[in-house]
């Protein structure tokens, strides 16, 4: 089928998923103790006031109605209003989105940059010296807690060298860019290990695949073999793994933002949770989920572009 | 006296209406007690499906199956299940990899209470003897056994329940030729010693000729011809049967070649 039709079809099939996510978030949040209306009104407000606010917030409606209203609201770009600041949730999220996206994307790209050559090298001679070293590094990498690596990065790199802001984004674009470096590196570290493992395994399987062996008997070798036969076929699984790891990367950014004090969605979520700001928490949760869904959609599209089998079976 | 197994007008099809595949088409077959019947045919002729239906693994869309005079439904009691057993084709997955040989056999004995609990171990030994396997094998797990050994265990497992009917579904197809011969001899011997009724499904005509007294030829889900083995092979009445016989490869200078 045509390219656009494929993308459109995929996107449409995700709509029920998004609606389900929305409902799930609302449902879970409704379990929370504490009365949102009371929270907005304040501890000393009279009952009547609390009741009025409850009505305003639609809290006296059954969940289905609130859900329907919320969906309509969201489609108009209104994610509700923060309890604490009274400002629109959407505004806050949008302001913080760039930081999170930058760190996450930079992190994933860095990870890919490191993963591909290392995995290829390791797969070239399995159980060889390079492979052993890379595998050990991989095992180590999996065990490192991201937030700790972030703090170590601050202690061992940011503080002594003074090149990078230790907290926050500093002033000016130059400082901003520098502030993104260490967090991205930390996020990259957190996801590289599983990616190397996966790509290495794929490459090894491919190396033994019959069509590659056939190519070698025909005289292909070295870089040409790599490029034309192995890498192209390694791409789809790589994309799938990258997409999965990118999902983890999003969490990595939450932790990294808190450690580095960056004004991103991650820190926003944590702060919102600690202040019991329901609409904010709800908004963040939904946006994060939408990001992940969008991520998988992109991964699917890239896969379809690279691998004709995906298009045909769709 | 009625036959041990009576299959009457059985039809089995899979899939829904328009895309339905009829695997077994209005088949009627009677199997006498103590006989050895060979069912031959190419892949897809419905042989396995027919037998699996007899065992209750499939449900027929039409027709009935009677065993020992009683009609068999979807739900069968333990006694009925015990009376008919099957040996399958693939030695690779025929035994539970997580269990030792002894434990697999013992389980059969225990669940069906074939012998009292104290006798189970001894009986396992007897079963292994029956299939000419060394006693130490009871401690082994399937991955240590060869294909032939696994099939012997599978036969022992089936015989553990002392069934009246034993169905061998391509039981030797996955084995090397010499090993095959060993298993076939075993089946012949067991038939003689225990009196079990045998049904052998095979695409190998020589096997059927060797082991069975009656042969049934199936094609596209239908029975094309049936009768005593010697007559069928010497003078087939159906052209398809003749084709099958002719198609079987023979070595130059063998007895078959000179017969033809």
């Amino acid at each position: 089928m045509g390219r656009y039709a494929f993308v459109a079809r995929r996107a449409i099939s995700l709509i029920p998923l998004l609606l389900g996510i929305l409902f799930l978030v609302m449902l879970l949040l409704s379990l929370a103790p504490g009365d949102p209306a009371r929270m907005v009104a304040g501890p000393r407000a009279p009952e009547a006031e609390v009741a009025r606010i409850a009505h305003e917030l639609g809290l006296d409606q059954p969940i289905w109605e609130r859900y329907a209203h919320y969906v309509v609201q969201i489609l108009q770009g209104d994610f509700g209003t923060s309890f604490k600041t009274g400002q629109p949730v959407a505004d806050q999220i949008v302001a913080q989105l760039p930081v999170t996206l930058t760190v996450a994307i930079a992190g994933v790209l860095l990870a890919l940059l490191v993963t591909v050559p290392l995995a290829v090298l390791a797969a070239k001679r399995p159980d060889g010296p390079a492979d052993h070293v890379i595998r050990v590094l991989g095992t180590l990498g999996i065990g490192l807690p991201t937030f700790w690596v972030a703090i170590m990065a601050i202690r061992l790199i940011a503080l002594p060298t003074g090149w990078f802001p230790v907290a926050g984004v500093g002033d000016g674009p130059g400082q901003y860019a520098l502030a993104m470096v260490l967090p991205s590196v930390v996020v990259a570290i957190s996801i590289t290990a599983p990616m190397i493992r996966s790509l290495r395994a794929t490459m090894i399987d491919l190396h033994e695949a019959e069509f590659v062996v056939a190519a070698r008997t025909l005289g292909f070798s070295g870089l040409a073999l790599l490029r034309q036969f192995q890498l192209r076929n390694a791409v789809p699984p790589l994309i799938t793994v990258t997409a999965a790891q990118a999902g983890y990367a999003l969490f990595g950014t939450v932790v990294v933002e808190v450690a580095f004090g960056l004004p991103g969605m991650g820190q926003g979520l944590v702060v919102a949770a600690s202040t019991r700001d329901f609409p904010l928490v709800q908004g963040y949760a939904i946006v994060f989920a939408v990001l992940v869904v969008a991520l998988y959609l992109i991964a699917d599209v890239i896969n379809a572009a690279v691998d004709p089998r995906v298009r045909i079976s769709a | 006296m009625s036959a041990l197994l009576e299959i009457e007008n059985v039809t089995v099809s899979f899939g829904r209406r328009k895309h339905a595949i009829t695997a077994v088409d209005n088949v009627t077959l009677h199997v006498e007690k103590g006989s050895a019947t060979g069912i031959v045919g190419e892949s897809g002729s419905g042989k396995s499906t027919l037998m699996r239906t007899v065992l209750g693994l499939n449900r027929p869309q039409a027709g009935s199956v009677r065993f020992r005079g009683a009609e068999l439904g979807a739900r069968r009691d333990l006694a009925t299940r015990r009376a008919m057993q099957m040996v399958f084709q693939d030695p690779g997955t025929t035994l539970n990899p997580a269990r030792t040989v002894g434990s697999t056999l013992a389980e059969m004995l225990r669940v069906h209470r074939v012998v009292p609990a104290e006798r189970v171990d001894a009986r396992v030994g007897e079963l292994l003897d029956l299939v000419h396997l060394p006693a130490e094998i009871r401690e082994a797990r399937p991955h240590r056994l060869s294909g032939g050994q696994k099939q012997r265990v599978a036969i022992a497992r089936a015989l553990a329940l002392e069934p009246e009917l034993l169905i061998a579904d391509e039981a030797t197809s996955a084995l090397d030729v010499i090993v095959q011969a060993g298993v076939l001899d075993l089946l012949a011997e067991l038939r003689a010693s225990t009196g079990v009724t045998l049904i052998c499904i095979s695409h190998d005509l020589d096997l059927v000729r060797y082991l069975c007294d009656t042969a049934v030829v199936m094609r596209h889900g239908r029975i094309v011809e049936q009768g005593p083995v010697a007559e069928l092979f010497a003078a087939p009445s159906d052209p398809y049967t003749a084709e099958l016989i002719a198609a079987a490869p023979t070595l130059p200078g063998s007895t078959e070649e000179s017969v033809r």
Partner: protein
Amino acid sequence: MKGPKLWIGAGVVGLYVLAAILAPWIAPHDPLAQDVVAALQGPSAAHLLGTDELGRDQLSRILMAARIDLPVAALATLLPCLLGTALGVICGYFGGWFDAIVMRISDLLQAFPMYILMIVLVFSLGPGVRSLLISFTAVGWVVYARLVRAEVLRIRQTEYVTAAITAGFGAPRVIVRHVLPNTLRQTLIYLTSDLVFAVTALAAFSFLGFGIQQPTPEWGSMIAAAQPYITTQALLTVVPGLVITVLALGFALLGDALQERKRA
């Protein structure tokens, strides 16, 4: 590389378990005892790893934290495993509407960045061990269910299962004695990597403030509390972090060793 992995991994984990069991007896001080005067001091004879911002003995706190982190991480892995396996077996063996519903729900759950869902859950249920475990379970069962379901579907086709059914064994017996044991290998392999994840995630949640609250000693929250003092008393952040990493490594090595061994 295979032999050593198993022993190193098992050794590390064993050591931690031992430390956790013996902590009340080998910890030199009461982990909750504050001594503000002696706060933020480096290693000394009295306090081998120094004191934290409230003057509590770091070494004792790290030891006692093992009594929380270890069992909670273990439960955070076992509970989803049990739930997921049970669901996976039923879905794989019986199929039908149950399978369809469970798979749909798992699709939905998988779409979420796992942690975000957990944060929402912990937010809703309040901080503490109970909500953490509920969160891990609610999110973690999905992978196990899918894994087990796939294995069950494959195993259902095998001849030994058919033989069991032909022999008249009832569904419970077939499932428990023939199907489940053969799914264990895959499940175990994933379990160890899940343990690695559980240990680090637990610490991360406490670091963020969603998990185990102060004053209960927990490696992650200890790091969070010590972060402001990173220039003066770096040891307070470094040591708990190393402790987490080494434990995670232990599980990872065990997992690797198991994977290689079972392949043989």
